[in-house]
């Protein structure tokens, strides 16, 4: 967007290009309209109707509305497939993902859940099996935290290099989540101290189930009913989702309807057949919950084109193990590394923005970033990662991502 966002067109009254819009497609902008008696009101228009006045300072603007709109210049979209939809990382600034652009991954669609009928059941190794309505959950002491979510199957590559961060690792997003701490509910139902695992179950048509360590529930798990200031979006688990800061997305069960406390894992399909990874010597790693440290340069990145001269290299870094300690950037294909600037606040288990100011001489080169977290873990190259796992790819791939800058300013993905 940084490059594509330029205001094109000649001065004077301008009409946006007529686009074929699907019948009944949502309003793209609001403009002033006049009633017969001359009263102005706010009306939705499609892009094809938007007219720019010659001088916006000479005509009154649009009055306040009920919901905000994006500028019709800004075309932000997720990239959907049959089973997921990816966040346009290369088009975003800062670290909070607009809620409508949060990545999606679900296993049989987004369910329609009536909040008035919603109930969460907690049972198993508890003193008092209980059910909670949405209103009940909202009465408990609340907590908010900013953290990332990431699907553990979040690495794609493409030989011609023509892929954007959205395709490479767009299955990560960040929000401020609000809800009730799971530990608060554990106390309420009297969780048996001998419980070591619990099953989290969703109310979608996959009836998603994952076994979670009870210790994570005591530590920092949240039952989230709000995201970025409003109710959790349906795609994100409305009305209530499990939030396990730093842990792979799939375990953060959405549309949460049941928690069963147990003293052993259940070995559900999603933690045996899927979300397990071969690591060499015939071994398969299971219950690999924590997301390792990762970073990606989101500018310059395909499809942006750059010119020689000053470039602020920008990106995001994150770790499921804790805080990002530093991010290093290389502008010479990994031969030397320099520290990047981290944008405060640097939060625990959260995307942090980094930047590195650089003067490009126009010679072809490769730029890349690597994240180092507070545990000392340093983001590896793809080769290092595969070597450590007996040559296997699979879940939990967090390699350094390189961008090849051609002399014509084209930026192409390159695997490391």
């Amino acid at each position, binding site marked *: 967007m940084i490059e594509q966002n330029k205001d094109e067109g000649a001065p004077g009254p301008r009409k946006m290009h007529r686009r074929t819009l699907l019948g009944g497609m949502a309003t793209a902008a609001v403009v002033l309209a006049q009633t017969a008696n001359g009263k102005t009101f706010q009306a939705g228009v499609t892009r094809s109707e938007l007219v720019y006045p010659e001088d916006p300072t000479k005509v009154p603007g649009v009055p306040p509305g009920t919901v905000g709109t994006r500028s019709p210049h800004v075309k932000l979209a997720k990239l959907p497939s049959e089973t997921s939809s990816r966040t346009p990382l290369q088009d975003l600034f800062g670290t909070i993902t607009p809620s409508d652009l949060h990545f999606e991954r679900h296993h049989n669609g987004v369910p329609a859940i009536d909040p008035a009928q919603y109930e969460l059941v907690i049972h198993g190794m508890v003193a008092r099996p209980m059910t909670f309505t949405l209103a*009940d959950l909202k009465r408990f002491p609340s907590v908010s935290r900013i953290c990332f979510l990431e699907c553990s199957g979040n690495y794609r590559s493409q030989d011609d290099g023509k892929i954007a961060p959205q395709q490479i690792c767009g299955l990560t997003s960040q929000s401020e989540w609000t809800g009730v701490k799971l530990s608060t509910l554990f106390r309420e139902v009297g969780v048996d101290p001998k419980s070591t695992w619990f099953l989290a*179950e969703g109310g979608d048509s996959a*009836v998603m189930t994952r076994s979670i360590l009870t*210790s994570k529930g005591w530590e920092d798990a949240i039952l989230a009913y709000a995201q970025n200031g409003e109710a959790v979006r349906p795609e994100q688990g409305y009305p209530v989702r499990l939030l396990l800061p730093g842990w792979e997305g799939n375990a953060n069960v959405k549309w949460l309807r049941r928690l069963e406390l147990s003293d052993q894992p259940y*070995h*559900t399909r999603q933690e045996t057949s899927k979300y397990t990874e071969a690591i060499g010597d015939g071994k398969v*790693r*299971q*219950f690999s919950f924590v997301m390792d440290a990762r970073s990606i340069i989101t500018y310059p990145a395909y499809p942006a084109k750059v010119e020689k001269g000053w470039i602020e290299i920008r990106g995001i870094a994150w770790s499921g193990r804790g805080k990002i300690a530093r991010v290093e950037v290389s502008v010479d294909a990994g031969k030397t590394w320099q520290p990047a600037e981290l944008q405060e606040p640097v939060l625990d288990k959260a995307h942090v923005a980094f930047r590195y100011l650089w003067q490009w001489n126009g010679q072809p080169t490769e730029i890349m970033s690597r994240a180092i977290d507070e545990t000392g873990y340093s983001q590896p190259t793809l080769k290092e990662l595969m070597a450590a*796992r007996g040559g296997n790819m699979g879940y939990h791939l967090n390699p350094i991502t390189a961008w090849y800058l051609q002399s014509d300013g084209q930026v192409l993905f390159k695997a490391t």
Partner: protein
Amino acid sequence: MWKNYLRIVLLTGLVGSVCFISPGSFSLPIHPARPDSLNWPKTFGFGKPAAAQQIARLDTDVRPDGKGLPSGSGTARRGKTIYAAKCASCHGATGVEGPNDQLVIVQGLTDPATKAKNKVIGNYWPYATTVFDYIKRAMPFNQPGSLTNQEVYSLTAFLLHANGLIKETDIINAQTLPKVLMPNRDSFVPDDRLNTPAVR
């Protein structure tokens, strides 16, 4: 193995954790960021007791030890007909053709790339109980939750037999299913990345 794993996780989880003390006794949250926490009551009294029928209606999960398996039974022979009617359209006539997930092993593959994708119930899944649990909750994909326990037992038997794990006449029920040994079970290892900054 899981016990050891837990010990490690619990130990590391507790270091620096201030969320609770002594899970054995009454656990009072003493998070320093919440000065009001000391005033927390033992319970808030929100919510209501879960009725036994409500729990029973939802609680269909099955553990590897067989806990949760319902009464009823099935055989591969009976499962074959049900499979043809309700599953073959998405998983193929013999469970390998697709278009959706392959359910049955292809024997004698040599090409490493094809072999790597040949990870199915018979050579990958560690527990037979998962087959029952998953079919019961999520299949058929276009009509999840529509199968009876008898049908699920038979389909489970059919898939276990097609994968070469049981005989066609074996009766699969709450007692026999947990005893079906899955060849890949010992390949699964707990997370080995914890407590080290090494790349793993």
